[in-house]
């Protein structure tokens, strides 16, 4: 029987090699932790670690199909706790640790892991599974001509406040040209945590995305304004869009207007389009908080979700054509994966063209950053097809 020379025998996991160490003392663990980045990723297997005295330690995550609390095991008599998880290639998993000492329970990010993930509900630790790489188009490219960010205030009667907007004007912006408009919810977070400006600069420079004016909206009462608020939809459609189209060289037509949002921002986008189906040609809905119930009202999302569930239930009962093209994405490791999957046939039943993308990722800005190329190149494709150098 022949053996393939390139297939290496499976190596024992680092944690198992440590178990055999004699003596297995504090100094050995110090050396072990000094040598490894935590979690330790060895092929598809990821070893989560915690060091400290405790009665119980859990890895807490929200992957559908796994228990939310995954117990860690103590290594022998040491103060090192570990858990080995199999993660499919290319995964990114958000997690925290829960530590119980007597009656005291502490939830914290992993002190041994510097990598953090950001989401609308705060930070969590993140484990990059084997094969995940930050897309190079999300990193600054010195060749890409930078667009400009300009601050703007839009007075809103609907919201009874002045709304702050950060405008992105593409490189080589000209008043004599005309541009499509993209409106982004949670604007500052998309700029800070999803590298939105860098992504736009790069994708426009590479001709993947059309030169686009982008309005990054600064939320105030996010959980109420984004949760199917009539006033907020009125602000978007009757105040923001007309002001932008008056002041900027925008194409000013349905096919050149797009709303983008993640989580509750996706709900705000869909709600505005439902109220004004003649205004927006496309929507980008990332990890939309489209929680619904088929029977009863027990959605388990808490009070803030009440208006969302009411809205989504109503929409699912009578789905309508609210835009021509929908880009819908969701992470498979977030609880919203089931509602998002369910929404796809609902959207499609209205005749809208839906592009649906899943990623081995969670409910966080990096997931949404990594989906921007798929979304934007589809919604506003660049002029690549026109260039023959």
């Amino acid at each position: 029987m022949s053996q393939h020379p390139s297939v290496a025998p499976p190596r024992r996991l680092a944690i198992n090699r440590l178990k055999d160490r004699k003596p297995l003392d504090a100094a050995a663990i110090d050396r072990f932790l000094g040598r490894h980045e935590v979690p330790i990723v060895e092929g598809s297997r990821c070893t989560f670690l915690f060091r400290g005295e405790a009665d119980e330690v859990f890895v807490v995550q929200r992957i559908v199909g796994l228990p939310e609390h995954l117990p860690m095991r103590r290594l022998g008599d040491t103060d090192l706790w570990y858990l080995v998880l199999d993660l499919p290639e290319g995964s990114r998993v958000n997690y925290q640790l829960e530590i119980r000492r007597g009656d005291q329970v502490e939830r914290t990010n992993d002190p041994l892991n510097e990598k953090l993930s950001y989401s609308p509900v705060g930070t969590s630790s993140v484990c990059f599974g084997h094969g995940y790489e930050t897309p190079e188009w999300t990193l600054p490219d010195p060749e890409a001509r930078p667009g400009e960010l300009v601050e703007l205030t839009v007075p809103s009667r609907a919201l009874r406040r002045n709304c702050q907007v950060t405008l992105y004007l593409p490189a080589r912006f000209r008043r004599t040209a005309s541009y499509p408009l993209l409106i982004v919810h949670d604007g500052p977070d998309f700029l800070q945590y999803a590298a939105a400006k860098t992504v736009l600069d790069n994708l426009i420079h590479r001709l993947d995305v059309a030169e686009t004016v982008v309005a990054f909206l600064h939320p105030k009462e996010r959980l109420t304004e984004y949760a199917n608020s009539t006033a907020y939809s009125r602000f978007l459609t009757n105040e923001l869009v007309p002001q932008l189209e008056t002041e900027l060289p925008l194409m000013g037509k349905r096919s050149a207007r797009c709303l983008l949002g993640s989580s509750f921002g996706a709900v705000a986008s869909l709600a505005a389009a439902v109220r004004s189906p003649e205004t927006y040609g496309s929507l980008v809905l990332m990890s939309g908080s489209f929680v619904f119930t088929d029977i009863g009202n027990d959605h388990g999302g808490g009070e803030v979700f009440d208006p969302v569930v009411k809205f989504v239930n109503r929409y699912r009962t009578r789905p309508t054509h609210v835009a021509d093209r929908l880009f819908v994405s969701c992470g498979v490791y977030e609880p919203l994966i089931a509602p998002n999957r369910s929404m796809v046939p609902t959207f499609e039943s209205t005749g809208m063209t839906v592009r649906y993308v899943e990623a081995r990722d969670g409910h966080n800005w990096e997931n949404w950053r990594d989906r921007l190329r798929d979304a934007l190149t589809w919604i506003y494709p660049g002029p690549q097809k026109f260039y023959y150098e």
Partner: protein
Amino acid sequence: MTLLGPQRRPSVQHVVRDLDPQGPVATVTAGWQERESDDAELDELLGGRMVNLTLHARWLDVHESDPEYADAERDHDAVLRDLRSLYIGQLDHVLRAAYEVAHSKEGDPRWQEAALGDALEVVRLVDEQHLARIRAAQHTFYAAWTPQDRPVVARHRDEVQRILEQSQAVVVAGGHVGELSRVLHLFHVEPHLPPVVIAWSAGAMALSERVVLFHDFVPHGVAQTEVFGEGLGVVHGFLPLPHMRRRLRVDDRVRMSVLARRFAPKQCLVLDDGVRMTLSPEGQLPADARVLTEDGRVSEAGAA
């Protein structure tokens, strides 16, 4: 007339070697848009006798000096975009149908071939209708705005004509084929072309009868090959496909076959790196020009 492949490794200097060293050579680099004036390297290749027609800069000047015309042109562009959007929606469906039939391995080949013929007829119908609508929209725009009567356009046309009349050759570089086609038309280049014309990539496309856009490797998946509009019609009987191997799935024989048959009897001309061909005085392709055959292969025009 000489057509070249992309000039990453320039070969234009070999083509102009036999020209009069003193006679000016007009150039069109408008496809480079805002980089139009970055032409020092090209000037060097042309032996320092280049006169750039600066068509992009002239177009910007028209916009600056004649805002009324600029507004009208923007509105016209919006009409063309709408037409393109409708066309691409239709095209996507009819081309998918053609690929599906072409891929089918069930049933009697005669019926399959007949069905493929029908599917291609529908694709051609969609192409032709789109082209007719584009033509009508262009006619309406130019009839309403008569650019030749706008003083700033007329002045630039005169200047362009004078340069071309004094030039022994014109070199049309690549770049954005839409913008290039626009300015070549607006500044009335075609009637004043000197006897020697050299073009590559988008330049070659803009000189042909019909401009066809193609790119199978866009980030969101395959983009359908589409008819953009009419070119200057200086060359006839073929469609130049620059960077074909980089931009098309040439190993997909079914797609390539559909492409070749869709545009027949025009030949799909491979204009890849290193290609250099001189057309006969009647505008015929040389026998060794590489073209796409109806069975989806690349072959010499003489053998196809």
